[in-house]
């Protein structure tokens, strides 16, 4: 039983990270039909912003040394500003372009950001010990819980509720929902495209910043492609959750997290190296049963 609860906690915290990342991706897809692969690089930059820019392999903390609240605000501000900058410089000129073209553009932004990071910081992994107290474990009834796991799960729940409230209650939130239903119609009815899209990028950037802080504490080391694996998993999560659905992204994130931990635990050693084949085989099964994902979003469906 203890073992089961332990694995459950592991799966919940991994799923939370995927869910938070998936939220950032899903929001942009809902409004712009943009599959933003550069989202992972926003996560990476949030982590690099903690240290002094230098190619010296010995990383020196900078923003990471500030009081906790200041660090959180500064990293969120930097990543949100960068997300809006990406929108203005790369995606705004392409507004209205085919989604596949937008996706290619996001790859270009991603490669640009990664190579800029290599130029400034070098490609050697950097050790970053942010908030070491969070990395410690506490034992609750024989179950080892890392404080970080608890913080990650709680943060995810709080942010999910916050986002839902924002989308339902605030004026911009309602405009965003309208734009995601039918962008053209929303514009005819007075929804300001620039504002809605900038807000979507800002929120997406905010989620990237939160993920980068949690993920830095988890891994303790950063590289130029730090956020990329999270985005790959989160992208799969948004697809099985239902492209464009906020709740779907979260469900998808948890499902991928659970599948990862489940196969890591139950597969025999000889097959464990092929864990991802099983995880993604499972994803394909889910999609065969529900091709539009767990939560169907009407506006994304093809009208036949």
């Amino acid at each position, binding site marked *: 039983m203890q073992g089961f609860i332990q694995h459950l906690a592991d799966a919940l915290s991994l799923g939370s990270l995927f869910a938070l990342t998936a939220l950032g991706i899903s929001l942009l897809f809902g409004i712009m039909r943009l599959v933003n692969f550069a989202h992972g690089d926003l996560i990476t930059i949030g982590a690099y912003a903690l240290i002094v820019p230098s190619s010296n392999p010995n990383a020196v903390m900078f923003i990471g040394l500030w009081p906790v609240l200041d660090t959180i605000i500064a990293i969120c501000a930097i990543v949100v500003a960068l997300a809006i900058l990406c929108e203005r410089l790369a995606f705004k000129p392409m507004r209205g372009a085919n989604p596949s073209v937008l996706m290619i553009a996001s790859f270009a932004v991603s490669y640009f950001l990664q190579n800029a990071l290599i130029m400034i910081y070098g490609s050697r992994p950097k050790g970053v010990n942010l908030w070491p107290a969070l990395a410690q474990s506490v034992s609750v009834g024989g179950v080892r819980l890392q404080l970080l796991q608890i913080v990650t799960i709680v943060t995810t729940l709080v942010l999910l509720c916050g986002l839902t409230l924002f989308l339902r209650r605030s004026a911009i939130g309602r405009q965003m929902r309208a734009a995601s239903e039918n962008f053209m119609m929303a514009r005819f009815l007075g929804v300001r495209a620039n504002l809605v899209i900038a807000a979507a990028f800002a929120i997406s950037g905010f989620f990237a910043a939160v993920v980068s802080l949690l993920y830095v504490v988890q891994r303790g080391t950063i590289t130029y492609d730090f956020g990329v694996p999270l985005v790959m998993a989160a992208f799969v999560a948004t697809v099985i959750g239902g492209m464009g659905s906020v709740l779907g992204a979260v469900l998808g994130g948890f499902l991928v997290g659970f599948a990862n931990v489940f196969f890591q635990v139950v597969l025999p050693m000889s097959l*464990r190296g092929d864990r991802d084949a099983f995880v993604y085989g499972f994803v394909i099964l889910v999609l065969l049963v529900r091709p539009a994902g767990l939560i169907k979003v009407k506006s994304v469906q093809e009208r036949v």
Partner: protein
Amino acid sequence: MKLVASGLLLAALALAWTIPSSWAADNDIVVGFAIAQSGWMSENDGPPSQGALMAIDDINAKGGLLGRKIRPVFADTKSDQTQGAEAGESVLAQGAKLMIVSCDYDMGAGAATVGNDHKIPTFSLCASDAKMGVQGIGPYAFTIANASLTIGATLAQWGVVKKGWKNAYLLLDDTIEYNKGICSGFETQWKRAGGTIVGQDSFKQDDASIASQVTNMQQTNANSKIDFIMICSHGAGDVSAVRQIRSAGIETPIGGGDSMDGDFWTKAVPHLNDHYASTLGSPFGDDPRPFVNQFMDRMAKADGHRPPTSLAISGYSVVQALALAVQRANSLDGDAVLAQLNKFHDENLAIGPTTFTPDLHINLTRPQAILGIRDGKGYFVDLVQLPAPPPLKLIFKHQD
């Protein structure tokens, strides 16, 4: 018009002709570096190629090789496997008679194949895969490094024989061959020396979390106490695994390969103790071999800070090996130099005694330095030599 065009063509041809002939008149011995000077791989190729340039300076200061000056030329692979062959061709076009390629089989294979095809003796700066040799690239390709099997095996030998540990746990990051080589060398030697592998698990370099692996490890530890955890990984994945294991309160000694050389990475794991890496030497100035310490001091002087790892010494040794073979062959002819390299027997290079045979262009039993970490600071622990090489069937498992 036609006349002008053919005149231009002739002029261009004449120009093209004069450039190589002016190089040919040059008496220098040209060594071509087809390595990553930009992109992610440049961090790995940088220090060893700096070591190689230092060796070239040393030889030139003593009057050169065969009475001629050695001149390095460069081509950038841009950390792109598909650019490797082009970089190889580029250094050949610049007159290279000896070639040096990237510190990794996959990244260096393109350029090394070009060198091999032109019968140019070619060394990888530090690939630890036997494929960087006769069986993979061809007879003219070498690597100066020990095999990844040896890296893992020496740590096992030291753990069982010197530390008296019995029970080991393997944690394999199965994303690249280097990691698998380390684990398979470790496992073989640990059992040969009388130890037991009480459990194993795998993860991936990019795994967001290894929490479930840590849980599995704790369950194994509850049944039979683990004395040593061997992590076969590299770079950020390895560091992150160490952090997550220590965060879970597991204080068991942990081992790693030469990508865990140095202590620049320990900032990721506060107050880390009991981590041991198998590598070339100590970058901390406490190596029992005076040459290694002098070398690290010189690197520190040149860079303004101590080298983060000891890996630069492999590049120095590559140039030593090539120069020794050229001197003995008294020629730059590829076949003559190759014949001398194939006769290498315990040659005293900076990296340690080095042996090659016509069939094996990688070293299997050269001593490895074990580096430890105490409260986040690195120190030299021991110099360990394997009593016997790892089994050949492991080295060439892909040719079975």
